[in-house]
């Protein structure tokens, strides 16, 4: 296989005509459309985007190094705070990694619980995103509507473990909290309510012509490019590729008859639809998980220090997260490498942006669901210059 230089795909410098005066536009780190700090330097011809150069590192905190300095159990809380949005899955993935090295068997009920909370996190995240996306395309009332409905999920979080955002139910070897019957009923009731509300909004996303005008054909990411640039999650599924780490059947997904949502449109619109459908799918998955969840213990304590190394992949709302954990038999890890979905989606984003208008920036940037807080490493983009 021939290796292709990333610069060939990303660097669009051949578009740049040196005789012309272009505008140079700093976009971020502080920008109302993107609540998170990322800097994109846009080279703009009138309003057409000629070139984009990203600058990351505004959220770089050194978490990976922090993980090596911390006690390995405390890392659960640190990895949860890689990101507040997918906090649960980060913690769960870390726990799974440790469990794998220390050969800890996780009780089945705990697996189901993890699946439920994982999907709840996805639900929360996708609703959040749908709202932000609506806001980015200038649809304030839709944003408000969705965020209003999202409170249902947050209240569920709160009922589960007393906090709206950070669920903090991860434990190595299982779960820290159980869902009892009354809570289960509340889950079912609230999720039903949520489904109704989403059904009411369905035509807005599926049929509204203005939204279509705003998103259709914007930020095209072809199948090939999506694969080559390493896009993950709904970004790649919106390009018609059936890529989903949940297909590996980790936790309880193997028992849930899970099929990923795939749209063929390759544009921002299909990426949006993927997420909207996943909201509904998550509700279904949670309900199914409740139906199948066995009774039993939820925690299998194993205080062995991690020894050896492993990798683990799980599916976050934004795509696949990848943990490499290495321990040497002490209470401190020697390496904890995390590759997060947004980091892998950034090259795709840069590629998508070029050729569109300034007014499409919010649509396209948001269409990968950029979550900069986990993209917290410095990325060097090599250019053909």
């Amino acid at each position, binding site marked *: 296989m021939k290796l292709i230089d990333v610069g060939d795909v990303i660097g669009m410098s051949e578009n740049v005509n040196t005789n012309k005066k272009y*505008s140079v*536009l700093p976009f971020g780190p502080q*920008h*109302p459309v993107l609540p998170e700090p990322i800097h994109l330097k846009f080279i703009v011809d009138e309003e057409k985007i000629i070139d984009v150069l990203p600058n990351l590192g505004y959220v770089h905190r050194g978490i990976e190094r922090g993980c090596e300095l911390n006690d390995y159990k405390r890392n659960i809380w640190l990895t949860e705070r890689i990101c507040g949005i997918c906090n649960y899955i980060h913690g769960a993935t870390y726990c799974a990694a440790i469990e794998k090295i220390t050969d800890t068997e996780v009780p089945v009920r705990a697996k189901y619980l993890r699946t439920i909370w994982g999907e709840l996190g996805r639900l929360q995240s996708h609703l959040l995103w749908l709202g932000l996306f609506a806001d980015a*395309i200038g649809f304030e*009332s839709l944003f408000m509507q969705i965020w209003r409905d999202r409170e249902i999920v947050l209240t569920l979080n709160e009922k589960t473990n007393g906090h709206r955002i950070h669920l903090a139910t991860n434990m190595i070897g299982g779960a820290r909290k159980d869902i009892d019957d009354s809570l289960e009923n509340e889950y079912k009731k609230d999720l039903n309510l949520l489904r109704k509300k989403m059904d009411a909004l369905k035509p807005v996303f599926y049929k509204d012509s203005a*939204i279509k005008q705003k998103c259709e054909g914007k930020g095209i990411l072809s199948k090939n490019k999506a694969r080559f640039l390493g896009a993950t999650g709904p970004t790649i599924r919106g390009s018609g590729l059936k890529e989903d780490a949940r297909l590996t059947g980790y936790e309880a997904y193997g028992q849930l008859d899970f099929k990923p949502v795939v749209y063929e449109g390759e544009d921002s619109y299909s990426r949006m639809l993927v997420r909207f459908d996943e909201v509904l799918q998550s509700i279904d998955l949670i309900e199914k998980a409740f139906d199948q969840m066995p009774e039993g213990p939820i925690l299998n304590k194993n205080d062995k220090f991690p020894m050896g190394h492993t990798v683990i992949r799980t599916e976050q709302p934004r795509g696949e997260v990848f943990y490499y954990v290495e321990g040497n038999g002490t209470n401190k890890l020697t390496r904890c490498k995390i590759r997060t979905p947004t980091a892998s989606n950034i090259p795709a984003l840069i590629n998508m942006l070029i050729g569109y208008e300034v007014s499409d920036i919010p649509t396209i940037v948001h269409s990968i669901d950029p979550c900069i807080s986990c993209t917290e490493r410095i990325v060097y983009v090599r250019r053909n210059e």
Partner: protein
Amino acid sequence: MLENISLNTIFSIVLIFCAPIIGGFLMGIDRKLTARMQSRMGPPIIQPFYDVIKLWGKEPFISSTLQPILAFCYFGFSLTSFALLALGQDLLLIIFTLGIADSCLIIASLNSKSPYSVLGGKRELLSIMSYEPVLLLTAISIYYVTGSFMVARIFYLSYPLISYLPLVFIALIPVLVIDLKKSPYDVSASGHAHQELVRGVFTEFSGYSLALIELGHWTKVVMMLSLVSLFWATNLIIGICLALVLFFIVLVIDNVYPRLDWKSMLKTTWSIGIILIIANIVGLIARVVMHI
């Protein structure tokens, strides 16, 4: 007769100075209603006044020495154009004066060396380009009804203007949307900065110059709405209600549309808006010809 005129004039002059205040209340109502449509509680009605007073007292930051002068001119000329309207002057002149006001705002935003402000200014230019023809054509269609460009003449009609110019009335909706900086045509700036251009034309304004810009904007809104209320000039109460209904429609539109880009704005006004007006005028002329 003479007393009558002077009374009217005094009334108009009072009205002129009230225009920004009325505008402020309208903006307050706008924010309240918008909040309610988003199932929020919303700020108090007098919120815009708090905003402006606060802005007036902020530490003055400017982007160039010309900026506050131009901001003042924006306010001043918006007021002037409203004054001309209230005094029953020539419609074309009113529209051109409004043009000066807009130019001041645009120049102030274009000549600050800030990318967002410049892009916003450019789009504001395009907004003018899209709605000015519609406004001019509206004036012309009014002429076809009244035989004069003088606003005062509209009051002599025995039937409300809207019965002659229903399509023109509809064509004014996008204009109002653009002017109020509402979705889908809040391309150059929007109230809250959830925009690719941050605050668009307003990015570089702050403190008292932003306060002036706000005042100017309110006045402009009042001026546009008064223009709308002329469509039922035989009974101004109904006219004002008509304007308020249109205002409400614009708010609803704001809440059911995402922001579209300036191209579709230009397309809408230059095609649908203009076609509506022309159709109306043609119909009008046809009616006259038939009667003869």
